């Protein structure tokens, strides 16, 4: 055993890639610290209704991962925590972890009494701000750790007093302060994930101006039972179920003016979402406008399934503009196969936007090598590795694969240790 083996591995980001990297290493006997900046682990996947191509719920696999974490004494999970300082040395890294104040601490039983008395409402970040939630709440219903959060800054003193007074379990600490700890870690896996390409950049597609032009991330929340519409797919403008839904592929992707790369998941996301619409609204018509339908591997099954569904059309064409017309949306499409410009109506448009790596503007503390799009590269000399969408745009299956590999690379960098 070498000297560095005593120091834990650090995994930054607890989305599906980070959770995977952490638990895979911990089950092989390594000590792991798993950081998450949000109050709950699970990242983007737990915000989605279903995974493609199986059309199964993301929380199902996460349930097993959470059980694995709970059973494993070698993982320490720190939510609402970020790396604020880091310096590499021969043994690995010295990192400073800064944790936001825990106004509701782990005495919390999730009984819900504080939520009942909290009158302040804030936009729900889990629902992309589409709905309001009490300032004292469980971050989302599947949140883990199951510990309430309090948006203290949003609350008047009267609400804070009420929240503190409602708690029977000594879990509310209004005077909580940020905490900081500095420690040595032997290797780092960065899995800080991605955010959707900003809709407001796509002005030609009406995004940000037309309320019935939404993103694919928004569509997931419309389909989720815990979402702002309790799982009903409704037009934001009038709350009515849409009859004609258009999916615009490569919205801001494969485009030098926006994202020059392909995110590799948006075709599949739209195919999946087409099934949501068709199942929920039997009279609906779905049209998918695409450049290339990218459904590699067994994902082809989903393309075949959706292509064979009644009420679904696929048109190879680039949507150039979206405008409103008589309470409906008009799409101007270059129909590549027919070789002409066409106009099409829709009453809900879903823009299949791509992924922007969070690494692009974040995690400067590690000074990771990046490509021109902001995706990271491994740096084995410095014992730092990238996983999931930090590394490249990819789907869940690929993120899990890469994250398991990144865990192995970190273990090797840490040196042979052996033994639980």
């Amino acid at each position: 055993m070498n000297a560095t083996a005593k120091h834990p591995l650090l995994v930054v980001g607890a989305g599906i890639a980070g959770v995977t990297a952490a638990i895979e290493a911990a089950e092989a006997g390594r000590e792991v610290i798993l950081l998450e900046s949000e109050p709950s682990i699970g990242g983007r996947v737990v915000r989605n209704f279903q995974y493609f191509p199986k059309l199964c719920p993301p929380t199902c696999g996460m349930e097993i991962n959470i059980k694995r974490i709970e059973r494993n004494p070698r993982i320490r999970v720190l939510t609402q925590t970020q790396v604020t300082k880091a310096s590499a040395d021969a043994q690995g890294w010295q990192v400073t972890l800064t944790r936001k104040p825990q106004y509701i601490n782990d005495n919390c039983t999730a009984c819900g009494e504080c939520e009942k008395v909290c009158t302040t409402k804030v936009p729900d970040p889990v629902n992309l701000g589409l709905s309001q939630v009490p300032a004292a709440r469980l971050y989302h219903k599947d949140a883990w750790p199951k510990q309430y959060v309090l948006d203290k800054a949003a609350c008047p003193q009267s609400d804070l007093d009420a929240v503190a007074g409602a708690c029977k379990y000594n879990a509310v600490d209004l005077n909580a302060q940020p905490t900081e700890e500095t420690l040595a870690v032997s290797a780092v896996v960065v899995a800080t994930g991605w955010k959707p390409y900003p809709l407001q950049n796509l002005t030609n597609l009406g995004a940000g101006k037309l309320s019935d032009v939404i993103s694919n991330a928004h569509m997931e929340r419309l389909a989720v039972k815990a979402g702002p519409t309790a799982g009903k797919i409704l037009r934001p403008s009038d709350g009515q179920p849409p009859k004609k839904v258009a999916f615009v592929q490569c919205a801001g992707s494969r485009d030098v003016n926006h994202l020059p790369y392909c995110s590799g998941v948006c075709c599949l996301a739209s195919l999946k979402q087409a099934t949501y619409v068709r199942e929920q609204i039997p009279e609906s018509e779905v049209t998918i406008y695409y450049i290339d339908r990218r459904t590699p591997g067994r994902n082809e099954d989903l393309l075949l399934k959706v292509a064979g569904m009644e009420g679904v059309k696929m048109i190879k064409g680039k949507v150039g503009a979206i405008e409103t017309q008589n309470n409906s949306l008009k799409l101007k499409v270059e129909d590549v196969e027919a070789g002409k410009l066409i106009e099409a109506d829709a009453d809900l448009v879903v823009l299949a936007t791509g992924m922007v790596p969070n690494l692009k503007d974040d995690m400067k503390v590690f000074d990771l090598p990046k490509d021109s799009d902001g995706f990271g590269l491994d740096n084995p000399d410095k014992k730092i590795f990238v996983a999931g969408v930090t590394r490249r745009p990819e789907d869940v299956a690929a993120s899990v694969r890469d994250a398991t590999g990144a865990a192995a690379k970190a273990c090797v960098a840490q040196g042979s240790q052996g033994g639980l």
Partner: protein
Amino acid sequence: MDKVGLFLCTGCEIGAAINTENIEELAKERGAKFFANHPCLCSEEGINLIHNAVENDGLNGLCIAACSHREKTEEFRVNPLKISMERVCLREQVAWTHKPNDEDTQMLAEDLLKMGLARIAKNELPAASQETIDRTVLVVGAGLAGLQAARAAAGMGHPVVLVEKQAKLGGYLNRVKTLVPEKPPYDSPHPNNLADIVAEVEDHKTIKIFKGSKIKSIQGQPGQFDVVVQTASGEENFKAGAVIQATGAKPYDADKLSHLGYGKSPRVITSHELEDLMSQGGLKTPLPGRVVFIQCAGSRDEKHLRYCSGECCATTLKQVATLHASHPQVECAVMYRDFRAPGQLEHFYASVQEKTGCMFTRGEVESVETLDGDKLRIQMQNSLLGEQVSLEADMVVLATGMVPVSADGEAIRELQDARVRINKNESATQVEEAKKIEAKNIHHEGTEILNLHYRQGPDMPVLSYSFPDSHYICFPYETRRTGIYAAGTLRAPMDAAQASEDGWGAAMKAVQCIEANTHGMAVHPRAGDTSIASFFLQRCTQCKRCTEECPFGTLNEDKKGTPEYFPLRCRRCGICLGACPERIISFPEYSVDSVASMIKAIEVPEEDEEKPRMIALLCENDAIPALDQAAGRRMQWNPWIRIIPVRCLGAVNTVWIADSLSRGIDGVILIGCKSGDDYQCHYIRGSELAKTRMTNVQETLDRLTLESERVQVHELSHNEFHRIPELLDAFAETIEQVGPNPYKGF
């Protein structure tokens, strides 16, 4: 357990919903040696109360009556080798979901407590593992994925044995000069650094390599596999702890693509053959004027490979770039259906379009004909250029996909079993039947790779398209053979960069399995479980259901057909326990007897009380979390239903249903995960098996002249919490309509 304490939490509305005054009496009546309640049992004070009682009163069983077993797990953690724990869910299943201070709510809470106490009385402590574990990782196949797996496992401090069928390491990449770009700026082919990796593996002190060798047999179980390798010079015997199968893929058989001119003209070649040409010095003279690349040749095609191999488009880009660099005078065209260059490869696509002048045209290629002279004519339809287009070329490259080099263990086993029946020659019909099975599976003969001595067959079972993995989204390395992981193009079509990552990942899993075995713990999905099954073989009737139905091939059979249990292959799902008609299979904390005792503990009111009783057997992986979600939202459901969490619907023994009905319980509902091709069962076959077994239960119901509606099986997804009250209430309503169980009071 004989020294049980009942700890009742009265917080989180429990104390307000039920009368807790007589619970102590109930606990003592039911054998508890200690009772305490606390307004917040998960607080430091509450936990201390538990620990002090364990210490002072020598408790070995804890019945924690509080929230769901999914909550506060860290606070309530005990050493499972010393103390058995049972969680009774009074918060989610009672206080949050039923009318407070109601007679029915009280009866529900008391029943749940009695059930918990009955179960813990039957629980036993798992014995600490004494197994000797070998730390060697066996890697089968030394292509890129296998090489990386070997490096990674060795790097994590494990001895590695690498077995390669060919005389040379490297696999398919030996045919390839360059790779698609893997690094920024992603605009030109990447050098193939296979030689460096091979050299590193060959020089590695702890990697032992057998080239030109095959696996002759693998016996035993993870941690203790006995491996025999057949080398050119003889046999090598050694032990291994875990296995990585990285036997790769082979190009789709182009002989089946005669409609695309393959085999009809030497100028129609596959992309793989073009790789060979390129690595052997380039195209032969006279150079072709125009080369046409046809994508999806035999892929995304019902008649050939239905799936997309995912890497052929990028490989074509690489070939166009390489061809253009060496022979700029050769005109290139690519005919594709959807051009698939995902991720950063878009940069490569853009660069090739810009630099090479290659024409990319979309359409469906119908045929390639050989014309007089040296010309080929390609017919394409639905093209951007028109409905029917034909294009002439001097050379055609078919981008063919990849087929995994897997062996279908189950089919081989069927073949072997059929032959045994034919040789026995017992009856003409049996022989005829067996011959049909033999004919169906004969093409699997000789395809064996791992040669496992497993009753369920010599190789891993395969799923769709012959890939041997079991949960390809969430847990991509998992297979249906414990401690044997699939890596690289064997488990999914992928490119070299992905196969490389895959090797690393599979090594992580193999190392993990060895570590878990060393500590007597189960691997995924019940990672950390220290219990193992016990078989009371004196009562075994050799019916073979357990050996047949285990999704993981845990059991072998001796000559008489008696099961031989390999604990290190076991995932602890309990499907064997569900299968056994003699009820001889038990886990220390999950047995036919312990659940039966829970059922027995339920008070069944007389018929005239008009309070039916129903049991809901809920899978702990999806249905119980959905129920907790429903409870978190304070949804309500019928209070006459008693919930019993089960490890899997496949881990339900039908005797529990018979017991319930014979005790006068009016109905049993089972809720588990989705079955079928896109199964969500973490044990693959559990919910499917449950459905099959329930058809037998229906026959029993008919025989007893009980209405078939009394037993129902439903499937539910983890996120369908709203269906929990719907299903339970609808079931209760059905039972009320059907009327009381006539066996009540017997």
